């Protein structure tokens, strides 16, 4: 049956069909417009989004620079080590795999547990997983023989940070350890990718934590490289798209001297203390030694919890860097500075003599301040006072001084501030002032406090590096490039200390007097005079830990080692044209000249016999 269609219905259909097809056409245009917007107008941002989806960049760890002594010998270097690395995505049953590999590689329960814990996430994304670090030669040999059984594991070279002198350089070098925030976010690698870094060190992304390793971390670190993988939507690595090699870190050339450091360590033996030696010409720090110490090799490459606890709980505090942080009364070693202060302020001159009856009586209240020698030194002038270390002379001189003037004079020698350009965590120690005393003890400054400072006792404290800086300024007749461990090639970076000025004549006499301390028949440190074949100037000191009025009383105290006096010497040589200055502090070592003196001489010997 054919229905006779009227023209009006046909026209109606045609117009409506065309209307709908125009709508369809409009939709086509809308879709095409949107596609154009995506593919042409916003192409750049979508291209980037697609790249960000598929490109997975991981950092490549650079090799850290070595730390070299002043002759170019490595103090810390990178030692290859071999790790067993597995490919979890090729391991179906990790427990079974561990059973198979255990006869070849020794695994502790902790290592096994840690491996299984990380296994699952790594297997999913076919990344590598370290099973065992630092394989022994035997393990490597055993594995290599059976390697055809282990297609899912291989041995790879990594490095450890190793020093041939892990103990004696521990404080100055410091240690490295893995850091959880060792990111270089300037690198355009998302933070989460750093967990997948290609490692050069067995310990992962290491960072200097103390010492030079910390101070010069950026210098030593180098620049991370980058490997760009293509990943799929599940995060599996498909292939490598790009590789930018890392730039290894720069070596750090220091002024340190291995031989001199060894002689300092030998000289101190198992006593506590610190030795600092400075090259007078450059301000370079040749020796920076603190005892007791610890092994940076162990600390950097994995130390057992027990070992670490023992070190932390050791009453001798091996982590304490005495050279930079130990606060000691400078004792008699301060006397040259007091003398210079007297000369500069015209309180004394070289010829003026006073009578030293063995004690000083404070005029205000009659309090007695004793010298070390009963009966005193009779008539003393400045030179003799330095040579025989007359307390009375300096008590009297200090008594005439204003504490504020004295304190600001001390600062010319670096006391009370950090003196080293690049030392880690240096303590500024302390120069007292009346305000400080009132604030802390709520009592005013007494003249007696100033008198005590005249012989380096009382509230004044200094660190061994400050003492070395001080004696170097004396040795250099007033000025010194700022002490630095790293060799500075750019002269603009050298900062010279504020000048402690004396006339040329006064400097000569001062050097003369300090030489007499060691080289004359009456000098307090004459016992070390024959330990060397050059002349040395210096000043010894014995820092009292308890204030006592008589020698008899001290002999009782002496039985307790920790209450014995600290032995200090500061020295420079060879005279008359000194090259090196050294400070030695030996805790509870007693007499400065006799105990600390030989150590200073050994260090000078070592530095000069290069």
């Amino acid at each position, binding site marked *: 049956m054919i229905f006779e269609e009227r023209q009006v219905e046909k026209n109606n259909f045609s117009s409506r069909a065309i209307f709908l*097809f125009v709508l369809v056409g409009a939709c086509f245009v809308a879709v095409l417009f949107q596609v154009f917007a995506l593919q042409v107008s916003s192409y750049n941002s979508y291209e980037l989004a697609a790249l960000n989806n598929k490109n997975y960049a991981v950092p490549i760890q650079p090799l850290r620079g070595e730390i070299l002594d002043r002759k170019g010998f490595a103090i810390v270097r990178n030692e290859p080590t071999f790790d067993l690395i597995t490919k979890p995505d090729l391991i179906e049953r990790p427990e079974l795999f561990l059973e198979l590999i255990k006869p070849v590689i020794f695994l502790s329960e902790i290592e096994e547990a840690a491996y299984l814990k990380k296994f699952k996430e790594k297997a999913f994304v076919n990344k590598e997983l370290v099973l065992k670090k630092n394989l022994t030669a035997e393990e490597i040999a055993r594995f290599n023989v059976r390697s055809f059984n282990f297609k899912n594991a291989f041995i790879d070279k990594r490095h450890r940070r190793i020093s041939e002198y892990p103990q004696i350089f521990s404080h100055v070098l410091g240690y490295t350890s893995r850091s959880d925030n060792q990111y270089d976010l300037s690198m355009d690698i998302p933070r989460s990718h750093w967990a997948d870094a290609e490692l050069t060190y067995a310990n992962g992304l290491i960072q200097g934590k103390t010492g030079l390793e910390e101070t010069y971390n950026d210098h030593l670190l180098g620049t991370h490289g980058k490997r760009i993988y293509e990943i799929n939507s599940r995060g599996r690595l498909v292939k490598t798209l790009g590789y930018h090699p890392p730039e290894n870190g720069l070596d750090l050339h220091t002024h340190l001297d291995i031989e001199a450091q060894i002689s300092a360590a030998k000289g101190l033996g198992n006593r506590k203390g610190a030795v600092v030696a400075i090259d007078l010409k450059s301000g370079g720090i040749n020796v920076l030694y603190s005892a007791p110490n610890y092994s940076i090799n162990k600390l950097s490459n994995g130390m057992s919890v027990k070992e670490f606890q023992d070190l932390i709980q050791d009453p001798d505090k091996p982590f304490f860097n005495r050279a930079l942080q130990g606060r000691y009364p400078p004792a008699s070693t301060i006397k040259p500075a007091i003398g210079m202060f007297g000369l500069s302020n015209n309180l004394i001159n070289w010829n003026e003599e006073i009578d030293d009856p063995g004690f000083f009586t404070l005029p205000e209240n009659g309090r007695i301040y004793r010298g070390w020698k009963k009966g005193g030194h009779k008539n003393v002038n400045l030179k003799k006072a330095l040579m025989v270390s007359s307390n009375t002379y300096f008590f009297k001189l200090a008594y005439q001084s204003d504490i504020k003037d004295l304190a600001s004079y001390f600062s010319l020698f670096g006391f009370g501030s950090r003196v080293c350009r690049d030392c880690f965590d240096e303590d500024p120690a302390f120069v007292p002032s009346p305000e400080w005393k009132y604030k802390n003890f709520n009592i005013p400054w007494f003249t007696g406090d100033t008198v005590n400072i005249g012989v380096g006792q009382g509230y004044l404290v200094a660190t061994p590096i400050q003492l070395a800086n001080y004696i170097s300024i004396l040795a250099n007749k007033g000025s010194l490039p700022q002490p630095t461990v790293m060799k500075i090639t750019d002269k603009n970076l050298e900062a010279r200390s504020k000048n402690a000025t004396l006339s040329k004549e006064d400097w000569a006499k001062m050097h003369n007097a300090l030489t007499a301390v060691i080289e004359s028949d009456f000098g307090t440190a004459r016992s070390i005079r024959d330990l060397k074949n050059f002349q040395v100037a210096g000043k010894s000191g014995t820092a009292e830990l308890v204030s006592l009025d008589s020698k008899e009383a001290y002999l009782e105290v002496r039985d307790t080692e920790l209450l014995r006096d600290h032995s200090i010497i500061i020295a420079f040589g060879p005279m008359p044209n000194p090259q090196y200055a050294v400070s030695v502090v030996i805790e509870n070592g007693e007499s400065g000249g006799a105990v600390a003196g030989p150590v200073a001489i050994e260090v000078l010997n070592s530095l000069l016999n290069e």
Partner: protein
Amino acid sequence: MSNRPAKIYFDPYLFFSLFALSILGLFFLYSASNGDTSIVLKQSVYIFLGFAIMLAVSQADPDVFRRTSLVFIIFSVLLLGVTFLFGPEINGAQRWVRLGPFSFQSSELLKLALPIFLANFLFDKRLPIQSREIVISLAVIFIAFILVARQPDLGTGLIVALSGLFVLFLSGLSWSFIGGAFIALIICSPLIWNVLLQPFQQQRIATLFNPESDPFGAGWNIIQSKIAIGSGGIFGKGFGEGSQTQLNFLPETKTDFIFSVIGEEFGFFGVVILLSIYFFILMRCLYLALNARDRFCRLVIGGLTLTFAANLIINLSMVVGLLPVVGMPLPFISKGGSSLISLFFAFGIITSMGTHKKFLPQ
């Protein structure tokens, strides 16, 4: 059909453009399935079968479809019922019915049956159509929509409803009625949102407007699809070179999002070519509709073609981020036997309706 002419009913324009589309589709599918030849092989079997069905169907006289339209729609509805009772539940929806080794999406049949049924119901009604006819037509459309939407398959349900509405519109539904219905729809839209839409469907609409609000959840598909298309640029990344596709960042590459694969690997250039083929097919169908032998044929061609167009436009708009994500394949390209077979069936009907001319007056 005693005097069936000894000729083959065949429209070369439609035939070759569909052929070109199908062959291109096989290439796209090869890339979208990461080079899985078995999928491509299976699809080409369906295509071959589809062309055979199309040729066979187009030989039938339009009258056959008209006379069987009631049987056809009852059969389709029954099939839906079978699906509802016995069909396997896949992803929380019952859409498939198993016929021996084949499984068939039962709603596909209704997309064909409903417009033919309505065309038969309306073609001999004089203009303007009466309210009684409108009410009956709308009731049939509504029942068909509900049956499919309950599966639940809102996307196909809407297409089914549209297929009926197109016929109703083409047969001369009055403009005032359309306007009134439109206003009613807008007023009722909050009701539709809250009562008819499932929470996951609401979520899809919400993420369309702000896909970044949920980049790893519901927004993932839209974001990745836009990245794929956008990063294709003008000339694309090349066959098999689309990183979004090959590294599986793009979801459902073989089915709903295959257009994104084309956009990524062949760029704006490829998209324009593909859309041109589709547009050519639509224009050819419009021509056939306008020149068909009678009103019934016109209505059927118009209804089926516009259903095809709606299907296409919904898929395109979805993958380029203009519409919410609804399950809707790209016709002739997406993987899937039922959709392909029913498409060829539809074009077989269109060819039949477009090529059979009036009998000579007896």
